[in-house]
């Protein structure tokens, strides 16, 4: 509770009420305890209460479960990250207590289940400990022998009491959640919730109340990155997709499989990733951009086909939800180590577009942007997200769907003539005539992976390969010129510029804020367009003494991460340096700042 409680106190059940600006709550238990759903409820409540919210969770990679956490940061102001430290730790088990006590703020609160946790007397001096027989009281409230079931909802009740949350709305969300199930299920859940809410928090001696958030001009929705991306794909007008399951991409394919039939579309689960990308390319050739996706290992399998799509100039949307690699790596952890394969994973010279959304909301809009780039430039577009952005929940303004949703049905208007690879087209930008298009000249195009002439027929001519290679990169150069100019977060001049991409945006921005509060001159920059890069980066870089590229990947042999290497190659500027880590976790703000300090001290 970052701000000190104000004197604004009221008395409720003899508990003092203190106003707070924000709170970070970390719930630690086992994945089977339904920890994610407590967090989910809190996030949705925040969205409905016009608050900002961001969540973070870890999931065990085994189905049988294991230790898991869900952290949620609720605020009446802006939320950039899910928080380095927790105001409240709710520990269901001893391991939850032992492993997470280090993440609790000084003077923070530890709520623990007395049945499973033996607090450490030393730590009891440092943190406020509140024991509650969570499991026992849950069983008491909902009866039966259902051992640990309902514990999560009981805990939600506790949190609701502690933060004086809108119980009515929470009850509504609980009821919504169990809609369609027998009524007794909802009743049981509500009983657990009420029992938690009624637990006397006398040892705490105070409860908290959020300040009134500033009013927003539109409704908020809450979603995780995979959902936002999936719905963005639908809004973009995509109606065909193909994929093969792999964590953390599977959520998107499951969403599309479930939703596409409503639009008379189709998502096909294929025998492997090669079939999936091929099917999507085939459908795209049909005249409407299609989508495929995967995570690292599957992206590697799709490589040959993406190279074909570059050569044949077929629009295509490819999603890569990155995870720890290489190989099976750390399937449920975050890493940003597929930038290289996305940009350069093709055989031959095969330029393609790579975009990296930097927030959950951005996932939604990037999907639409990607589809439109794919269509206009007739090229594969890869969207790089990662496990962290895919699974974290954020609140954002309700998109204006009526204006945004687009129809991208195939255009089969007859033509007099058609050259699929017209070399005289401005900037080399051409689009295909979809099969089914009548062409009056009687000359029909072939799309091909062989080097070809303007009609798509094989050509081994050195000049043709020269010209066609140039065509394929020229159109992406043109795209680069059209991209919005990037802007620094914070002043355009200063000592350090932190450059990042994708899910690290929040951490870098919060680090900037904190550093500036401490009098350090740091700004941040997010690069959303990885390939081609937008114009104007060098101007921004020139305003700073140091450019540190902070990434969730390895600095490798020479100390530069993947984006860092790209920027160094592009700008040949020795002041561009890397700050990297590969622990499979998101960047914490304090770690960013510590590494910046270290780096500056090296100088």
């Amino acid at each position, binding site marked *: 509770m970052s701000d000190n409680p104000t004197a604004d106190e009221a008395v409720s059940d003899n508990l003092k009420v203190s106003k707070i600006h924000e709170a970070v709550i970390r719930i630690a238990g086992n994945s089977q305890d339904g920890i994610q759903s407590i967090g989910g409820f809190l996030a949705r409540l925040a969205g409905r209460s016009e608050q900002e919210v961001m969540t973070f969770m870890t999931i065990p990679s085994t189905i049988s479960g294991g230790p898991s956490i869900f952290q949620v940061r609720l605020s009446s102001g802006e939320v950039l990250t899910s928080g380095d430290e927790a105001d409240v730790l709710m520990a269901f088990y001893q391991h939850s207590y032992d492993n997470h006590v280090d993440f609790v703020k000084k003077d923070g609160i530890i709520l623990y289940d007395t049945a499973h946790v033996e607090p450490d007397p030393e730590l009891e001096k440092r943190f406020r400990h509140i024991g509650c027989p969570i499991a026992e009281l849950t069983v008491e409230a909902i009866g039966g022998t259902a051992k640990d079931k309902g514990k999560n909802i009981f805990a939600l009740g506790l949190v609701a009491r502690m933060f004086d949350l809108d119980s009515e709305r929470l009850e509504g969300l609980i009821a919504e959640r169990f809609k369609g199930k027998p009524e007794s299920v909802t009743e049981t859940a509500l009983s657990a919730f009420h029992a938690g809410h009624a637990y006397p928090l006398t040892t705490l001696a105070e409860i908290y109340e959020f300040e009134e958030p500033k009013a927003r001009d539109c409704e908020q929705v809450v979603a995780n990155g995979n959902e936002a991306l999936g719905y963005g794909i639908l809004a973009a007008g995509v109606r065909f997709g193909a994929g093969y399951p792999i964590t953390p991409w599977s959520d998107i394919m499951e969403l599309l499989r479930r939703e596409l039939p409503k639009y008379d579309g189709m998502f096909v689960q294929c025998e492997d990733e090669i079939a999936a990308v091929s099917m999507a390319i085939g459908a795209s050739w049909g005249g409407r951009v299609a989508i495929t996706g995967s995570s690292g290992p599957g992206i590697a399998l799709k490589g040959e086909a993406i190279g074909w799509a570059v050569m044949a100039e077929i629009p295509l949307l490819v999603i890569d939800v990155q995870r720890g690699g290489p190989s099976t790596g750390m399937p449920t952890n975050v890493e940003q180590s597929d930038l290289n394969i996305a940009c350069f994973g093709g055989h031959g010279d095969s330029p393609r577009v790579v975009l990296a959304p930097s927030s959950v909301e951005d996932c939604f809009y990037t999907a639409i942007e990607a589809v439109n780039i794919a269509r206009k430039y007739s090229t594969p577009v890869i969207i790089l997200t990662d496990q962290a952005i895919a699974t974290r929940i954020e609140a954002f303004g309700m998109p204006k769907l009526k204006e945004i*949703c687009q129809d991208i049905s195939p255009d089969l208007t007859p033509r007099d003539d058609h050259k699929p690879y017209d070399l005289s087209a401005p900037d080399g930008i051409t689009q295909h005539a979809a*099969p*089914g298009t*009548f062409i009056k000249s009687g000359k029909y195009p072939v799309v091909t992976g062989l080097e070809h002439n303007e009609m798509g027929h094989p050509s081994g001519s050195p000049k043709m390969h020269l010209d066609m290679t140039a065509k394929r990169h020229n159109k992406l150069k043109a795209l680069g010129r059209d991209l919005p100019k990037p802007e620094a977060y914070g002043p355009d001049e200063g000592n350090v510029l932190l450059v990042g991409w994708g899910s690290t945006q929040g951490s870098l921005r919060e680090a900037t804020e904190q550093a500036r509060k401490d009098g350090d001159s740091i700004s941040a920059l997010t690069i959303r367009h990885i390939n081609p890069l937008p114009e104007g980066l060098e101007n921004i870089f020139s305003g700073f003494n140091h450019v540190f590229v902070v990434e969730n990947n390895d600095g490798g042999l020479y100390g530069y991460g993947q984006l860092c290497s790209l920027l160094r190659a592009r700008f040949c500027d020795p002041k561009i340096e890397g700050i990297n880590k590969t622990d499979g976790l998101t960047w914490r703000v304090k770690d960013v700042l510590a590494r910046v300090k270290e780096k500056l001290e090296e100088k």
Partner: protein
Amino acid sequence: MSAIADIERKPLTKKELAADHPTWCPGCGDFSVLALYFKLLQKRGLHHEKFATVAGIGCSSRFPYFVQAHGTHYIHGRALPYATGIALSRQDLDVFVFGGDGDAFSIGGNHFNHCARKNVNLTYCVMDNNVYGLTKKQTSPTSPIGFKSKTDMWGAVDKPINPMQQAISAGATFVARTTHTNPKHLLAMMEAAMDHKGFAFIECLSECTEFYDGAFDSSNPRKGGEFRELPEDHDPTDENAAYAISEELVPGYFGVYYQISRPTKQDVEAEVNAKFLEKTKGLEDWEILQQNFDKMK
């Protein structure tokens, strides 16, 4: 979807259908497959914009360059999933896929099985020469044991694939075998395949004169062999009978080994969609999506 009304359009002439002059070696069996594809298109009055020709990589797979129509020359072994994408998303088109034995049964082997089991409505003609032609005489998955190639200079050692049996067991609903030396039969099989609703597979023996000359003489009466059609009493709906009679590879029998009717991938997906479309009837796309967003409030 096509904007051209089918007002009394004459079938295309061979000249209108032919594109590049084929780059195949003189005498290559693939010529006759191409010639009969033209015949099929003419006979069935298919116009340029009504169909798509798709192939992978190989000598045989160069097919689309020789056909004046919307075509794709895709990557090695993956023509079927590519063609599936077009067949599912553009059901107004007739989709024809051509390729070689390596393309179909080696690198593309798994796609073959899955396309068959999904019963995707398209026609697949494998031009089987029992050898890798384009890469100049390596062993193919259908090369007979003992065939001397650049990768088995002492003679092939691995048991060859049996295309008929593979197709039947994978769940293909139309399985036929023909040869380039019998044009009438080849055309009949193509027509039957095109008319079949579902995954229609034809294995067409197509001699590689360059690297496996005489491979199929035993089925060619002009070379002293015998063109054996399936016995008259063969019941193509009898899976076991079809499997049993496929035992012999070369020369083997010719004709429709197996044909049954099973809902296509297109059918089963349409059935799924129908249930949803009932609920979203009358709604604009954005209104359907709005329902999801309302749930996220």
